[in-house]
């Protein structure tokens, strides 16, 4: 399929009925994940985490500690996977890159005037190029929600396409900030714009706005990925970010990915969790399965 080069020739997004989505999501949540499938699922979740720190008060010290945790999740229990990536501001990319040298953990950087995206295209491009030059493997950009809500879809499309070009070899995750789009119809439309404009991944949220990665939103985005794959054969990755802090919720996200997109998406090339506190909850669940004893957070390092 010829990839459209502007918003005007991408397919019309289908409408989304929120109540129907809630019912569908409830079905995913009623899946019961036990025993071996739970153990496997939890390992998968760990390997899909983008360990994240995106604060004004981030320092090299903080970032270095987080990077260490990224590949030493719980050293008292061997054979655990590492997380997929760490996610930091552009200014911390070099620090993270250095700290993770020799590991398989990738460095993702937010860009484009994260989190609001309220800046000029030139600033956003410069922001992106800086992060890429510093060594970022992945770029997490934000879309211009203001422009989207004002109906300037061409602007949003072109901006994503421009950032994609600036990414070079880095994979581009496009953050829709669904909490500001408000309706699932908008989430679907923004997903389609991002995908057709060149996103490698679509991502729900910055983590700065509530609600963030609800299952309803993730479901809607997964359906956009599914439809795109069905008509082009091209896979797009998905990253729910913000609000997924428990193992159960993470497993239900995997259920959703499996049943909508299939097992091909069930690895960290195509699915990520943007989360900071999820890792320890998963670790506690794994240790519970291994030892049969309920765990305390005192025994799991926070960074």
């Amino acid at each position: 399929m010829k990839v459209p080069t502007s918003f005007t020739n991408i397919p019309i997004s289908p409408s989304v009925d929120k109540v129907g989505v809630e019912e569908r999501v409830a079905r995913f949540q009623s899946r019961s994940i036990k025993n071996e499938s739970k153990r496997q699922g939890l390992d998968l979740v760990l390997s899909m985490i983008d360990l994240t720190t995106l604060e004004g008060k981030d320092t090299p010290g903080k970032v270095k500690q987080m990077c260490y945790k990224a590949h030493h999740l719980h050293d008292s229990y061997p054979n655990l996977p590492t997380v997929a990536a760490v996610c930091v501001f552009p200014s911390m990319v070099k620090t993270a890159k250095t700290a993770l040298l020799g590991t398989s953990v990738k460095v993702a950087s937010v860009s484009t005037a994260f989190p609001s995206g309220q800046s000029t295209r030139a600033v956003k491009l410069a922001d992106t190029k800086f992060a890429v030059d510093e060594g970022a493997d992945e770029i997490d950009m934000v879309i211009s929600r203001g422009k989207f809500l004002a109906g300037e879809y061409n602007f949003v499309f072109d901006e994503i396409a421009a950032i994609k070009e600036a990414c070079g070899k880095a994979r581009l995750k496009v953050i829709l900030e669904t909490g500001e789009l408000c309706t699932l119809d908008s989430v679907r439309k923004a997903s389609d714009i991002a995908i057709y404009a060149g996103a490698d991944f679509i991502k729900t949220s910055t983590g700065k706005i509530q609600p963030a990665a609800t299952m309803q939103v993730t479901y809607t985005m997964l359906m956009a990925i599914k439809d795109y794959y069905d008509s082009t054969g091209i896979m797009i990755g998905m990253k729910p970010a913000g609000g997924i802090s428990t193992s159960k919720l993470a497993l239900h996200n995997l259920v959703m990915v499996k049943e909508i997109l299939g097992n091909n998406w069930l690895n960290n090339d195509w699915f990520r969790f943007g989360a900071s506190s999820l890792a320890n909850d998963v670790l506690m669940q794994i240790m519970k399965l291994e030892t049969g004893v309920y765990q305390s957070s005192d025994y799991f390092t926070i960074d």
Partner: protein
Amino acid sequence: MAKSTTKKQAPSWDYSPSLESTSHITILPRYELFINNEWVKPTSKKYFKTTNPATEEVLSEIAWANDKDVDLAVKAARKAYQDVWSKTTPKERSKYIYRIARLMQEQARELSVIETLDAGKPIREARDIDVPLACNHFFYYAGWADKLEYAFPNQPMEALGVAGQIIPWNFPLLMAAWKIAPALAAGNTVVLKPAETTSLTALKLAEIIKASGLPPGVVNIVTGHGDTGAAIVNHPDINKIAFTGSTNVGKIIQRAIAGTGKKATLELGGKSANIIFDDAPIDQAVEGIINGIFFNQGHVCCAGSRLFVQENIADLVIRKLKHRMDSLYLGNPLDKNTDIGAINSKEQLTTIEKYIKIGIAEGAEIYQSACELPSKGYFCRPTIFINVAQSSTISQEEIFGPVLSIQTFRTVDEVIQKANNSPYGLAAGVWTDKGSRIFNLTTKLRAGVIWANTYNKFDPTSPFGGYKESGFGREGGLHGLGAYLKMKV
């Protein structure tokens, strides 16, 4: 970077079995008849076996009531009506029904598991739909018992007397609730016969009714086959027949009571249209199609068994439908992840398979979910037929199984005509984003329940029942009271 289509070795992450425990339930080896709050041996001395359709194992044996047993039950109900229930104040009636509702809630887990074992339905549905709705039905009607004068403006009403109630096997406990709760609220006494393949939860309900302290004889439960039902229908001292089942049997009943003055409500068959327009919320519509036809293995009188898809999106809808069908889990109904359980009986499986053969013979294109069938038990893959004609057998006759016939249409008027072109008129579904079109269709479709942008939703407050040969009378809601009352003259 060019978009990668290379795939990592896909881990085949799948769900381990997650079986609902059966350790907390009690099923007796034998059940007698429930008459006058006592367990009475049948004078017929006959019993029949009830089996688990998923394993073909015998669960229990059940008393088979004959004419004499039914007469005993009707006499008990009449005596209870005259001596006790008609003299019980509405307020007290109300509180008995509330008690039953609460006791059912307390035993909800046990009821769900037994329903799953006896009927073959997935535990997810029994647990999340059948049993809660059954409890809620009692709750809803409990509150009506002392407010009946508000339901019929300017018209004093009174109870009918003894109600004979015959229920089907697709929602055993829920149908018992639909029948018993409004009957009691309106002040009638009851003789209820469950379907022969699914008596157990009704008998559990009998235990609950006894425990609730409801006066003896107010609710009597007689088990048996068709002859037991006929004995109820033909009993001269019954004032009301409430039947849910096939249109065929409904007509037999209606003929049998012709001229007797017995009041009847009939909830019969259907061949309901589910209509998808090109502007529909497409993925939710696909889910609606799935819920419409595969809910409860398609053993649903209002199943959306005729799918009408606007021709310009037919390929898309069918592709999505097939994909969704392949993510349905078929298997052990006790597994919490099972979406499609067992067909209720060997007989019904034979009927469904017959229709699948007819569909193939009629030249429609068949697609079935790619799931393994268990080696034991009665199972049927979710099945759709594409390119079906209005005049095909499978788009006219009720199959009562997981079999969907798909037709395409071009215009609004055409689909309304095709949807209404049926002797049935139970339900219909409409999927479109356009409000004015929804109201056009919901007004013109000749059916008692219209689901717009949803399907197969039920609620105690919502009247249910059909037009034309789908029966008459309503169950549920304010309007459901009318079935159990008459005008005071």
